[in-house]
């Protein structure tokens, strides 16, 4: 399901216009982004945890040239599904 279908479906459930729904979605995502940027973990009980993790720098190979490269450290948003969700989707 792509973004458009998702918004339509959500609008139908909430009995809202599509525009309002997509606005709300954008606001929600930006709120969550703020939290992540300040290093917080968002934990939705039935759904899962969203956490920003630091990946350390590492030495790797360029796949085609086989050259050694140093990959810099990164901050990555990770999602860990809750046990409930895992069980449900099995």
């Amino acid at each position, binding site marked *: 399901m792509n973004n458009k279908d998702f918004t339509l*479906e959500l609008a139908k459930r909430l009995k809202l216009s599509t525009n309002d729904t997509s606005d709300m*979605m954008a606001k929600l995502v930006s709120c969550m982004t703020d939290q992540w940027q300040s290093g917080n*973990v968002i934990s939705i009980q039935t759904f899962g945890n969203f956490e920003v993790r630091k990946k350390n720098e590492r030495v790797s190979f360029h796949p085609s040239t086989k050259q050694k490269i140093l990959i810099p450290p990164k*901050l990555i948003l990770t*999602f860990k599904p809750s046990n409930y969700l895992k069980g449900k989707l099995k």
Partner: protein
Amino acid sequence: MDEKITIQNLIDILINNTSINKEYAEHFVKEFFQLIEETLEKEKYVKIKGFGTFKLIDVESRESIDVNSGERFLIKEHKKITFIPDTSLRDLINQPFAHFETVPLRDDLDLSNIDTDDGKAKVEEENEEDEDVDADMVDSEESVATEKEDAKDNMDEKRGEDEGKEFVNIEKNNLISTPNAKSELESDEKIDLESVNKLKDKSNAITEEVVEQGIEKKQENIIGSEENAERKTEEEIDANEQKKSEVPKTLTDTKKQLTAEEIIANELKKSNNLYPANRHTHKTTKVTHSYFPIKILKYKIVVAILSVLLLLSIFIPLFFPDFLMSAYVSLNINQKFVQERKGGPNVPNIIVKSDTALVNAIRKAENTIAINALLHADSLQQDSLLRIKNEQTIEDKNLMPSFKPQNLVKADSTLYKIVGIEDEYILKDGETLTSVSLRYYGTKWLWPYIVKSNSDIIKRPNLVYGGMKLKIPKLVRKVIK
């Protein structure tokens, strides 16, 4: 930081940020995640713009081995939920580290000693033990001991070189390789020699002999091990031995040398001089060990110097607002005379004229115009075709003062008379008399008149406060005889 945000907190934040109905927000957020869950179940794929993609991936069954029992067993096929953040979100999250780039490394780079801190420590311990032994042997077998020590030195220097290489590679995108590292090595050796020389001055004759032997041996060792660096270091050593304490200094080297000297000075202070001979030889080797402390100390010193400069740059304008201006003017005057000399031999006629113009200008304290005149004169001197024009401009300049007196008054603020009061002005915070003068008369240098007409309020011209009511005098130029 590291707080756990539950769905309830998230709803509260959303309400704060967007000022919407609480029930509505709650409903929305819950429905949002509920829908992701449901569609994931149904369609195995949800993409939300600005957020990311959730996918349900089938994992095939595979065999594995139980870690505890060592038995083989089958992992059943199952489904895995993955989340890939949107590129925009990923970039936002990674913003603190966004300036890092992937760096290609050189193939021959030895990475083995990045993670082998233990091995390194061991080697260093061994070195120190050996040195202790050496130090004991100094009295009896000086030459042998120093040889050993120098061997250690070389080993350590090489180690330092390797480490230096890696750091440089990581920091400067692999631009710098062996030659630089070698130069670092050279400078390290310089530090050594410098320190050795320092110590020579301080220690007694016996230690002098020991250390000198050390230098000779070191020289030999260097020749043996580092053929490329050989010649330079030889020269440096010669120079060092000739001058003993004064070494030719390049810009970068001076810093390092300074730090080395300081370290030695510190160490000298710390240590009690029970066994001067042993201790000093010891220290020469210690300097090489503290390759990184030297670097750190260097940075500290640089930071200290910078902060002092910063403070100066803040306080000089505060206390001497005219400092820069006067410096600038004096500089201009200097330039003037330099230009005069340069132009002299080529076009004597004009120079004489511009000279007279200059003298006039200086007498009347007309710096800016004089400079202009001279700049004109100079540029025109080079162009002999425009001589006539030049003469005209000089004449113009001679006439100029009477037209534009205000801009020119600097040192001489006695050119004016106070004729009544022009205006009243309430001083604001942070304003000075010069700034008021600049505002009313177009020049800083007329502030003494303001002081004069406000002598009842202003006790010290460099101490004025916001809220002062100043009378701004009306000035009329005196007639010059």
